[in-house]
């Protein structure tokens, strides 16, 4: 177990002059080690941002189900889609920036590692498909009227397809982040 703990400590320690706690050597070391290392905070916010993206996608999927099943909750579905852009855009930028920061900061990871490159490509797929799904929903709201209901307009705009692509890309990214193939 001691060997494993040592390995973990090494893996967690970012580059640069570090104390035993993995914090920068100097006056800030005591405070830093008390508040956990930079790596811990970066990883926490990175993971939290990933959770926010998944939450945004869950809201969008919920809105999609409510609309396509014609439950009479179209107004609620549309209100749910209003939250998704905040979760997608803000968390999307955070997850990317912090992910790159972590890849640069941690010994053993490089930005050109195949699994990290694949994750970056998947980030683009998630951003593109998520934005298309939301845009299709917004267009459907404008085009839906007396002749066309919202469900038909949403389906015509391929919102379910883009939503499914975003879900698949998020799942693939999660698999990459956990299994880290080739790392």
């Amino acid at each position: 177990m001691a060997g494993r703990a040592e390995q973990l400590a090494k893996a967690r320690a970012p580059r640069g002059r570090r104390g035993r706690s993995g914090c920068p050597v100097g006056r800030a070391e005591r405070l830093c080690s008390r508040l956990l290392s930079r790596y811990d905070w970066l990883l926490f916010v990175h993971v939290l941002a990933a959770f926010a993206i998944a939450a945004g996608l869950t809201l969008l999927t919920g809105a999609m189900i409510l609309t396509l099943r014609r439950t009479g909750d179209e107004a609620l579905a549309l209100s749910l889609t209003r939250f998704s852009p905040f979760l997608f855009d803000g968390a999307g930028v955070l997850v990317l920036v912090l992910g790159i920061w972590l890849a640069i900061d941690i010994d053993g990871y490089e930005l050109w590692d195949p699994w990290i490159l694949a994750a970056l490509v998947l980030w683009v797929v998630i951003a593109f498909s998520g934005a298309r799904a939301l845009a299709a929903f917004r267009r459907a709201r404008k085009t839906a009227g007396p002749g066309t209901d919202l469900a038909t307009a949403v389906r015509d705009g391929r919102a379910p397809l883009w939503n499914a692509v975003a879900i698949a890309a998020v799942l693939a990214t999660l698999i990459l982040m956990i299994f880290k193939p080739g790392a």
Partner: protein
Amino acid sequence: MSLAAVRPDEWNFPLFLHVLGAMLLVGTLLLAGLVLFSRREGRSGAGLGFRVFLLGVLPSYILMRVGAQWVESEEGFGDDGPGWLGFGYITADIGAILILLCLIITGIAARRSARAEGGGGTLVRVAGGVSYLLLAAYVVAVWAMTAKPGS
């Protein structure tokens, strides 16, 4: 030295299930909260909230909890696990009770709403509040699981 070299391959699949369940749990809890606090043209969000809890929150919780137990058995902490693990158990187990409570509350409110008895508003708001409370607790749990303080 990378983290991947530290974590044995056998831990990856249960960890994947655990994180996937946790992500879905957070997403469906947010969805439940928004649905329960929504104003739906004279109808309460009880029925829909109940379905979100039954078909979304509960299965996500089970996936997260089964994955957690599986990872823990692979890691073999034994009886003397680290503090962050204990915190995870506390939030998960209290969360289970609160999720079941929300299921019952929204179920009763949905029945009242269907019988047009009304009066489900307070119950619905309580369930919505509990959803947001659980969300806040799980954000702290995510911090404990990633930073692993005391490990």
